[in-house]
């Protein structure tokens, strides 16, 4: 048992932060928060505070990354040193490199990269405060930042995780649940078709538990999607 692990995660049907098992943390999204970036978004999702910026289409450096038939989509996930209790040393570590990779693959299916051959579309995700679920927060933010930059996309991409604590399937883990829980399953989807663009899992789930957690995460994605649309309507008016 790890140091600091609580005895129970769910008491009288409520989680330690007061939520029901299928309840998202509060989520606020604001599009267009930076001046220099071509597009940007700021998210507060529970205790996560995340900013995403998009630059592009723009010239590709180094040149050998250029693709003759499409834009290269590049994603960079980074944690501010003060975003976590134990100061994060600046620079990419293995975890952030993996998250950068799956973030790119979560967004690639919707971005119409073929419209801008020989260019780069760069997405930067900065975690200013982390409370578990930062990769879903980052993908959700990045998708809004892309829209804010006017990059043509088939769809927004909302992301949300489900997991298991105390043997129960719960939506949208926060940090204590993430650190000491028994499974975490982040998912990103294309809302119109329900197709899955991100899927990772670590922990221990029986087959039926997986199915329930997966469906719960997908439902979470649809809730997140509503917030994404609201943020864009707030800035631009109209629906997506």
């Amino acid at each position, binding site marked *: 048992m790890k140091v600091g692990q609580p005895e129970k995660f769910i008491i009288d049907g409520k989680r330690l932060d007061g939520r029901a098992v299928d309840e998202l943390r509060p989520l606020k999204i604001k599009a267009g928060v930076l001046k220099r970036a071509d597009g940007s978004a700021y998210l507060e999702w529970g205790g996560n505070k995340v900013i995403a910026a998009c630059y592009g289409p723009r010239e590709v450096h180094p040149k050998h990354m250029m693709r003759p038939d499409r834009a290269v989509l590049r994603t960079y996930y980074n944690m501010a040193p003060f975003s976590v209790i134990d100061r994060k040393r600046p620079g990419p570590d293995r975890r952030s490199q993996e998250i950068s990779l799956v973030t790119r693959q979560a967004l690639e299916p919707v971005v119409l990269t073929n419209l801008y051959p020989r260019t780069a579309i760069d997405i930067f995700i900065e975690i200013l405060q982390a409370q578990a679920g930062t990769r879903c927060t980052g993908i959700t933010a990045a998708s809004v930042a892309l829209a804010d930059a006017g990059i043509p996309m088939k769809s927004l991409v909302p992301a949300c995780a489900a997991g298991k604590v105390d043997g129960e399937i719960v939506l949208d883990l926060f940090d204590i649940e993430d650190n000491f829980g028994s499974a975490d399953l982040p998912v990103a989807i294309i809302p119109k078709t329900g197709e899955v663009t991100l899927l990772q899992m670590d922990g221990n789930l029986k087959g039926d538990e997986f*199915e329930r957690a997966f469906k719960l995460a997908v439902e979470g994605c649809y809730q997140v999607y509503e917030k994404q649309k609201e943020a864009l309507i707030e800035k631009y008016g109209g629906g997506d």
Partner: protein
Amino acid sequence: MEDIISEVERDYIASLIAEGKRIDGRGFDEYRPIEIETGIYQKADGSAKVTMGNTLVAAGVKLIVGEPYSDTPSSGVLTTSAELIPLAAPTFEKGPPSQEAIEVARVIDRVIRESGAVDFDALCITEKEAVWIAFLDLHILDYDGNLFDCGTLAAIAALLNTQMPKYEDEMVIYEEKTGPLPVRDKPMETTFVKIGKGIVLDPNLNEEQVLDARLTIGTNQDGDICAMQKGGPGTFTQEEILELVNKSKEKAKELRKLL
């Protein structure tokens, strides 16, 4: 990991799959021939060499004694690394591990960790002070696709082959062994790729180069899911995912029998 492939090849492989065929003649749910040798690198505390078709992975385990992490003061430590050395493919480059190498190592590490395969508590020597630290190094020697499954198999084979060195008077004596590393489970990973509408197991390099989406599913010997990783620029439907989860358990059993 990105080999350039012509549109023509892409179309050819995809159209074969649409007809229910694979470029190397295998069934959609069939692994390439697998060979496992263990204990072949004697300076390692445990080792294995696994071939899956033409993919060749060498795995070695080295044990040292060090301090535990402060939040798990009575647990040993496992550090999994993978190197896609430039010997293995014309596209692999020198330098620090690529994102792909990091992903392979992390996903393999995850299934070992989450399945509880290694009894980390048994690796504690003195609480808060001294625990065994196991370095599991995966060395890709020939790259013909599906590093996740081949690498996991090599990793588990090497862990099962590992003998604990003696620890005496604050010194590790590598020449004397005290018994096997405490391994309690044999988790496996199975990787499927979607090309067009078809989904095939154990992609070879040609198939990886044209994949739309990739799904790796790691299960323990009870059939519980312990790790998943979707990759590739495309998508899976929800139905496809649920179906692959079921199929994965069967295929993992087949792999496990080889150990």
